[in-house]
């Protein structure tokens, strides 16, 4: 599964791909604030729809993405079930104290309408946030990420850390496969049909040790190559991947500034002041 990671190294040619790294990173950060600040379905749903449109416009490899989406939906479903198990009455806290019991399993485990609403909103919020990150990951290259972060005054060594880490993720996948194959040639059974699940899990943990060691062994190579190209000489840095702003970038600038102002307004009026309801609940 690790060879299906979605990192782009070459910029694509759709509308979102052509934006500058600066616009992508700034829009993404504003959208993150927007998503984190509230549990209001009226705010999350439009972004959810925009996320689907954005994803479609990128023309991604759906086959790979489908696999990812199945995992994410499964993990989040498991999460909300665990949330419900931890506190079946969690909805009362969020939706203003109501207990509309829908059905009762035992005295401890019952399902209220408020809890159901809270868990549903939470689920949509998580899927939306995944969608926003997928659109971001698919539309950006590691150097554009560094350039974008540099444009919001992050020190360039930290930018390099982000872009290198991003760039290195597919390599980890490749190394994992290589180590796995070489273990198999030495007779370690990793075939799902022949080894039991427990054995395979144990073998997969054994792969991690050489994976970590070989990754850190590569540090010297990469840093020498960077030193030879004069990395870290200057106090500032410019990025080759960053091009001039297009019309679309200017339009996006208006959007993200407006959205940021809206977020500031929302946080001041909703998140710092006490509320009757912690989230919008239409049936209260």
């Amino acid at each position, binding site marked *: *599964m*690790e060879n299906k*990671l*979605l990192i782009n190294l070459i910029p694509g040619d759709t509308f979102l791909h052509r934006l500058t790294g600066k616009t992508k990173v700034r829009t993404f950060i504003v959208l*993150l604030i927007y*998503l*984190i600040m509230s549990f209001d379905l009226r705010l999350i749903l439009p972004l959810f729809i925009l996320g689907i449109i954005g994803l479609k416009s990128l023309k991604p490899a759906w086959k790979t993405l489908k696999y*990812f989406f199945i*995992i*994410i939906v499964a*993990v*989040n479903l*498991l*999460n909300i079930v*665990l*949330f419900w198990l*931890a*506190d079946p009455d*969690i909805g009362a*806290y969020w939706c203003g104290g109501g207990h509309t019991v829908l059905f009762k399993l035992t005295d401890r485990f019952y399902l209220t309408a408020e809890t159901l609403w809270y868990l549903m909103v939470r689920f949509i*919020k*998580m*899927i939306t*946030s*995944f969608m926003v*990150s*997928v659109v*971001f*990951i698919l539309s950006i290259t590691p150097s554009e990420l560094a350039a974008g972060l540099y444009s919001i005054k992050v020190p360039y*060594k*930290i930018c*390099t*850390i*982000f*872009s*290198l*880490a*991003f760039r*290195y*993720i597919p390599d*980890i*996948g490749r190394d994992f496969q290589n180590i796995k194959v070489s273990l198999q040639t030495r007779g370690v059974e990793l075939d799902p049909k022949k080894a039991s699940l427990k054995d395979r899990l144990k073998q997969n*943990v054994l792969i*991690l040790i050489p*994976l*970590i060691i070989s*990754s*850190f062994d*590569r*540090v*010297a190579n*990469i*840093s020498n190559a*960077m*030193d030879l190209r004069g*990395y*870290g000489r200057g106090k500032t840095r410019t990025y080759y991947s960053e091009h001039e702003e297009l019309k679309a970038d200017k339009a996006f600038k208006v959007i993200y500034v407006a959205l940021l102002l809206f977020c500031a307004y929302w946080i001041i009026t909703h*998140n710092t002041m006490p509320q009757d309801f*912690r989230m919008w609940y239409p049936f209260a």
Partner: protein
Amino acid sequence: MKKSFLKTLLGVWNTKTVVAIAIGAALFGVLMNFGGIPIYTNTRLTTAMIVPVIVGSMFGPVPAFITCFVGNTIADLIGGWGFWFDWSVGNGVLGFIVGLLPFYGARINEGIFKPVHAVIYAITCIVGNALAFGVVTPLMTVAFYGGELTITFLQAFAGGIANTAVLVIIGIPILYALARRSAHSTNLKMEEEKE
């Protein structure tokens, strides 16, 4: 020839450190997603915790902090469970505390790691987890997300125990191995480092 306090704390910010942090962060991010067993909501018994041990022992606490912070952000980015920067900070603090190794004399780069250091290391791991996930993460949760404290505490409890287990059970043998690997240079003197 003793390095100054600040220098040990910050680490030497040359290209090698930058690359090591980046690779550590990538590994941390990937292992958080694929190298763990879920034990509670959004909490895993994860092998990712080995990474700050390695980065911390070789480069110091602040690089370990950044590794964990960036790594957790990347894990959130590809993980699809939403963005939880309170946890990024919490993991960062844990990385910082794990990376304090040189301050109690465990100089892995020079091959020094004695049983007494292992004991101190185990204690720091426990204290570090308690501090990072019992104090720092809930504080950040209130600051960023305003609430959800019950969940955070439950997650922190589960995550803290899992992390301590990984840090102690896998971490100590790794530290011994790393120390042995660089032990051959113990009788050599390091020349003044050029930056």
